[in-house]
């Protein structure tokens, strides 16, 4: 196994370059969060620095100086090795940015594992049960010989690919940029991983028992149901539970007594939900767009999940190898279409000895 960090270290042979990559990551995160400055410089300056960084890496790989082609930059960008180098740098950046970006939001439920090409992700599981004692006579040497079994879950990875293309004529007129399309394809990969994680989580938790003493799936919110579920999850995981939900779902977490009052400065009004509910923290999950259906959202606004984030994560994501990219120049195509392709391989599955529960709101 290796890590994407190692890939980046291999790609960038000197400390200065590594620092530049880290700065780019910082810039990306600041850009995404809507910050106006990053690292003490304006976003505009940071954007210029990012462009300069990309150019420097491409020049380093191709040994072609863009300054020598300043009178005909289009020709420079048209060189096969230049475009290949540009997309390989983008692929490395994608590897660096995707896990970090996902980690931030999926940390309570998912763990990411970076693997080399050809690796298979295996999650080792230990039973959560204990051996409980029984009464025995004072003259007996052994009790019943009992045992329990470890488990292992293998998570296969599958290659995903997105190809985008634009007409050569549109490149010449400057109407469209292949790089912009590829950036959107990368964002699509990130979104798909996020969907896969939430789908696997929702399916796994939804399939748990909905009745009896093993019940972990409930329909209908009440204060008692939520508090009891949080107690049960915390007790069986031997780790404090938290409540997860979208802003809409979390706003429904209110005490049974209707005599509550809150002022405009309260956390309920300012943040959309209470921060803690009877001693259990409430964490709002950022809603995400569901690009499969226009204007749909992915996270279910009617579900409150209870998990123990400090225990083993429910969902495991195996990222196989790094992102790959290939570029086909327009002139290599019979109908003059330039394409960019991003490939990435990952697998997602529920594999854990930790427990979770869910309440579907009324």
């Amino acid at each position, binding site marked *: 196994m290796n890590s994407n960090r190692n890939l980046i270290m291999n790609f960038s042979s000197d400390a200065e370059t590594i620092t530049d990559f880290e700065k780019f990551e910082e810039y990306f995160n600041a850009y995404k969060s809507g910050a106006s400055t990053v690292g003490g410089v304006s976003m505009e300056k940071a954007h210029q620095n990012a462009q300069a960084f990309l150019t420097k890496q491409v020049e380093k790989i191709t040994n072609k100086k863009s300054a020598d082609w300043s009178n005909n930059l289009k020709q420079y960008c048209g060189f096969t090795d230049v475009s290949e180098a540009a997309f390989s740098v983008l692929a490395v950046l994608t590897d660096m940015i995707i896990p970090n970006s996902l980690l931030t939001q999926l940390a309570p439920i998912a763990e990411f594992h970076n693997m080399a090409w050809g690796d298979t992700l295996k999650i080792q599981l*230990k*039973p959560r*049960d204990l051996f409980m004692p029984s009464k025995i006579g004072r003259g007996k040497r052994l009790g019943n*010989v*009992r*045992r*329990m*079994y470890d*488990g292992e879950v293998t998570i296969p990875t599958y290659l995903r690919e997105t190809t985008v293309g634009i007409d050569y004529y549109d490149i010449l007129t400057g109407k469209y940029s292949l790089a912009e399309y590829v950036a959107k394809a990368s964002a699509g990969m990130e979104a798909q991983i996020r969907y896969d994680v939430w789908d696997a989580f929702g399916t*796994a938790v939804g399939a748990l028992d909905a009745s009896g003493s093993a019940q972990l799936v409930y329909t209908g919110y009440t204060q008692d149901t939520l508090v009891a579920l949080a107690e049960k999850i915390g007790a069986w995981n031997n780790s404090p539970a938290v409540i997860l939900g979208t802003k809409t779902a979390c706003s429904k977490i209110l005490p049974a007594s209707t005599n509550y009052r809150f002022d405009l400065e309260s956390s309920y009004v300012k943040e959309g939900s209470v921060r803690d509910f009877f001693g259990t923290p409430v964490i709002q999950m950022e809603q995400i767009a569901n690009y499969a259906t226009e204007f749909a959202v992915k996270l279910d606004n009617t579900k409150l999940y209870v998990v123990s984030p400090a225990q083993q994560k429910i969902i495991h994501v195996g990222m196989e190898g790094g992102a790959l990219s290939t570029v086909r120049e327009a002139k290599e195509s019979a109908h003059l279409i330039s394409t960019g392709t991003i490939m990435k391989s990952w697998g997602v599955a529920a594999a854990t000895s930790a427990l979770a529960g869910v309440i579907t709101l009324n």
Partner: protein
Amino acid sequence: MAYGIVELLAVAADNTDASVKTFISSDNIENGSVFTLGAVVSGQEDEFAAVKPATATLTKQFYMAASPTRVVTVINGQKFYDMVKDPRAFINVAGEPIDGVMLKIGDVVRLSADALAGTYVGSGSVTTHAVATDGAYKLTWATAAISGLSLKHIRTSYIPVAGGFGSQRVTAYDFVVDAVA
């Protein structure tokens, strides 16, 4: 398909080397299944054929398969070991040595539901025993003891097996050996 799991909770064979024998069979045999002692395997000092229960042998001394759960996967005749880590995937593959434990009256064993043929329909007077059956290695649920190997159901239990997500308890039944002949 899930195979049977056995736990030898308290058996006389625990303290007697002669009560633990090595068997071989041309059939795949699950842990928790039973057989009688066949001929010693030619050229082997301590390996016996496992004989499938038959009407004529129901009152003979039985042995129960209880091998370590080292899962064997056979692909194109090649054997691969431990590709799967789950006792429910384990079966004593034909040709592999089987650890057979001599059952004695008073022995207490725990068998997963998959180790038994038939259906458990409740304690009391309904399914009270698991018995040796003509033409089958697996013990079969029965409403009474037979003239032959009979295990009395004493408790419904579980065996912890980690895997996937959610419940980790495999339904099991505890028995005490009631009769061996």
